């Protein structure tokens, strides 16, 4: 994806069904779809099921890194890996999640590959994945992507992206794979007016988001303030783990072996650094016993450690952790407090 320059096209909205048909040739298409009164990332058959009207809470991370996954079975002293992969198109991923997938690529693939290690369970799925981003026309309550430099318009990390220009979609390509899909539709190149329009939509969304801080360089400021901020917000934390589970970049997992009698299954499942048991030591003590210490770890990891190790912040400003927090602890408040000195 990295060396491809990319092109920009205009697509009449009437062509969206053809676009979806073209995507279906690349694999199972998953898009935000109305289920009950919620929007969930679900497999779709035709374009009419796709709903871009709201930003879903649902996290597409599950399609590459499931909540629970059987990774191998042990039977008759033989290990049988259960590598599951299928061609998948994630349609309508928001820019924050596109950025999150780039983080996941580094955590599970790019970085460790230099040492000859690659997590096949996640990376096989990543390799078979086509990402079609949808740039946000409007923000949601807890959005702060503009402060984290990940949105509201995606600039890289996708195969195709869509921007809603009213009658048209602006379609951008960032990979050979994306270019190949779009070429079958014979779309005209976007006009300069359309490019200006996209810029205006970005500005409008940023204005509506109304974020009064910018996280650039936060990794240099965090040491001074993190203790006070972590302590302050931890007082309200009820330890549900939701901020980790629904963080699109959180990638910690735990494993357990399940004896089914005829075979043993190894299962891996999402873990959370906000749980005390995450740092359970022999003898029944806990490295991070106090909730404040766990909150500090979470903030340091998102806003500092991954900058050092992977060259990227791992908070994308999607606001999911704020939305799912039963105690109304908001990540945007913590980031702002860290930047402003506690």
């Amino acid at each position, binding site marked *: 994806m990295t060396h491809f320059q990319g092109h920009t096209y205009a697509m009449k909205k009437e062509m969206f069904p053809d676009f979806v048909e073209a995507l279906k040739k690349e694999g199972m298409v998953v898009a935000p779809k109305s289920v009950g*009164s919620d929007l969930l990332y679900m497999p779709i058959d035709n374009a009419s099921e796709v709903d871009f009207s709201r930003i879903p809470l649902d996290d597409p991370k599950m399609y590459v890194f499931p909540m629970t996954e059987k990774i191998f079975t042990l039977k008759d002293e033989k290990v049988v890996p259960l590598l599951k992969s299928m061609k998948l198109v994630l349609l309508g991923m928001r820019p924050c999640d596109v950025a999150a997938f780039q983080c996941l690529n580094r955590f599970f693939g790019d970085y460790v590959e230099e040492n000859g290690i690659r997590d096949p369970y996640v990376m096989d799925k990543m390799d078979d994945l086509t990402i079609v981003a949808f740039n946000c026309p409007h923000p949601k309550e807890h959005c702060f992507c503009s402060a984290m430099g990940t949105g509201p318009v995606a600039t890289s990390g996708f195969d195709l992206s869509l921007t809603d220009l009213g009658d048209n979609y602006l379609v951008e390509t960032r990979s050979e794979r994306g270019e190949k899909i779009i070429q079958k539709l014979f779309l005209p190149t976007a006009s300069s007016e359309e490019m200006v329009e996209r810029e205006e939509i970005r500005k409008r969304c940023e204005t509506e988001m109304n974020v009064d801080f910018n996280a650039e360089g936060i990794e240099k400021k965090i040491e001074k303030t993190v203790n006070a901020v972590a302590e302050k917000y931890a007082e309200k934390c009820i330890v549900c783990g939701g901020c980790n589970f629904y963080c699109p970049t959180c990638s910690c997992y735990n494993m357990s072996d399940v004896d089914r009698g005829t075979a043993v299954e190894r299962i891996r*499942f999402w873990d959370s650094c906000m749980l005390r048991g995450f740092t359970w030591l022999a003898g029944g003590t806990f490295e991070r016993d106090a909730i404040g210490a766990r909150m500090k770890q979470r903030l340091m990891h998102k806003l500092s450690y991954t900058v050092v190790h992977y060259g990227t912040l791992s908070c994308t400003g999607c606001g999911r952790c704020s*939305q799912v927090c039963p105690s109304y602890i908001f990540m945007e408040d913590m980031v702002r407090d860290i930047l402003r000195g506690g």
Partner: protein
Amino acid sequence: MYLIVEGGEVIGVVPCESHPVSEGKLCIKGWKAHEFIHSPDRLTKPLIKRGGRFVEASWDEALDLVAERFTDIVDRHGPRALGFFSSARCTNEENYVMQKLARAAFKSNNIDHCARLCHASTVAGLMAAFGSGAMTNSINELLDAKSILVTGSNTTEQHPIIGGKILHARKRGAKLIVIDPREIQLAKHADVHLRPLPGTDVAWLNSFIHVILEEGLEDEKFIQDHLESESFQEMKKIVMSPRYSPENTEKVTSIPAHDLRRAAILFASNRPGSVVYSMGITQHVQGTDNVKSVANLQMIIGNVGFYATGVNPLRGQNNVQGACDMGALPSWFPGYQPVTDSSIQRKMAKAWGVRAEEMDSMVGLTIVEMVKAAGSGDIKGLYIIGENPMVSDPNLNSTEESLKEPFLVVQDIFMTPTAELADVVLPAASFAEKEGTYTSTQRTVSRVRRAIEPLGDSKPDDWIIGQIAERAWYEGCSYSSPAEILDEINRLVPIYAGITWKRIDSAEFPFGISWPCPTEEHPGTDYLHGGGNFSRGKGKCHVCEYVKPPEEPDTEYPFRLTTGRIAFHYHTGTMTRRSPTLDREVRSAYIEINPADASELGIRHNGVVKVRSRRGEITVRAEVSETVPRGVVFIPWHFKEAAANKLTNDTLDPDSKIPGFKVCAVKIERA
């Protein structure tokens, strides 16, 4: 909450963003709700005990045996020799069918469920005061209260979503008053935290009312228009006596008089005010008096029948409200229609196709009474669904002896310590495997939908109950679907009359309807007793005098033990302890003890101690912590291998028959 299913297995959950109460928030038990479903420990075959060991059996064998033994017991000893424990984890429809099995098929009112152990005193107390025994208001109203009094509820651990809303209400300016012996998380955010000794609630509640009347902060108009005046005058006479002055109350409760006065004035002068309570109020030998006193308090301030006010007992299981509503109680038919009322008996008999004069017309036995009756031989057959008295009941050593006696049938999803004592074990389906409805703590009836097929040979509870009934020559417990059962409920239960399957299965009510809902046109009821017009007519004050708990610390057993739950486990731990994430968080029982007490006894943090009461002994780890005051200790009761209920006292509240779990005397020594 949505379940993610892959290849017939539940592999995850998705929070429901559009749900008006949860708003996409879950507690850790919700995030990990899928982890126990496919546990290898799930029961998937009926089991019959032969020669002291369980052997697998076919459904026909097991069901025939149960029906045959139950019928035989009724023939030889009468219907009252059978007992039935229904389950607050099961659906409304299953609870309805279970009580119908007891009442119509076997003609016994010996039906009860675990609400007896948690909110029996709420139902009794609020029914007497208001005419309805449920949470008066809705959860989201807490956000708009001007003051919130939380007592006997560790809300952020036991009802985390509600706890979060209380924290948020505090941030929005509500005054928060926490009254709890332990320094719980909410206490750290409170305007005032009072720490009464466990078991002294009537004393401080009366003193609150004393201060409010003394300061003239009562709502005179509300009292005049909406309360039975004689009852108010009688109650007033008692609480105004000098023994309930803050100064004299301090001697009993150890709450500083000045703080009590401040809290009472703060609460009464910031209206609308809401009281939130739970087990710390109900699980006492004076539980019903505690609840009545809370009702007294809210009535005299005029905090009942309006938005963001109310007496709000938080129910502790997914469907404990529904199990009560469905009449899984020895004194009520479904919908709180008394079993002793002959016109109701006739109505039910007609609908159920039995003769009214054959039905049991007397109030049946409660859970703890049934266990005792099993021990004494008065109950010969006991059918327990989704309950685990071998961990949840008080005075377990005695419970165990009693449960060994009768012909015991246990229906569950796991082999619980109770099931181990059974003669027949029937494998049931989990919540992910069944269709039906649940009723939440705020009286909202909503759908649960099947995500996967029942595992192995396990079956939904309503099917199993129907089969037993058929084999005992009663066809009335077999239905084609839960929808058909709800339809029958709609016809017989006035408060559920308008909550039809069609409505709550539709997009119009994706999150259910709150009872009372008398007709199909009715939108449901957010808060009860609107405008102060109580279900019983006028509100009734009750005279409640403080009585000492039956067992107080003495020189031999010098500590006051109180028990409770923690955020990571659910009741007897049969599900949560099988979730690797929840189990890792807290793996074993512990005792919270104040650092000063610990140091006197030479007990170190994490050290192993023996805790002994007059009824039993357990060995646990010490958690040395300021959370408990001196002289008070706390043990979570989820853990079967160190069951706190081996220590607790089985003395019952005379009004509601709830055991006084929350106070007993223990001694502690290093192990």
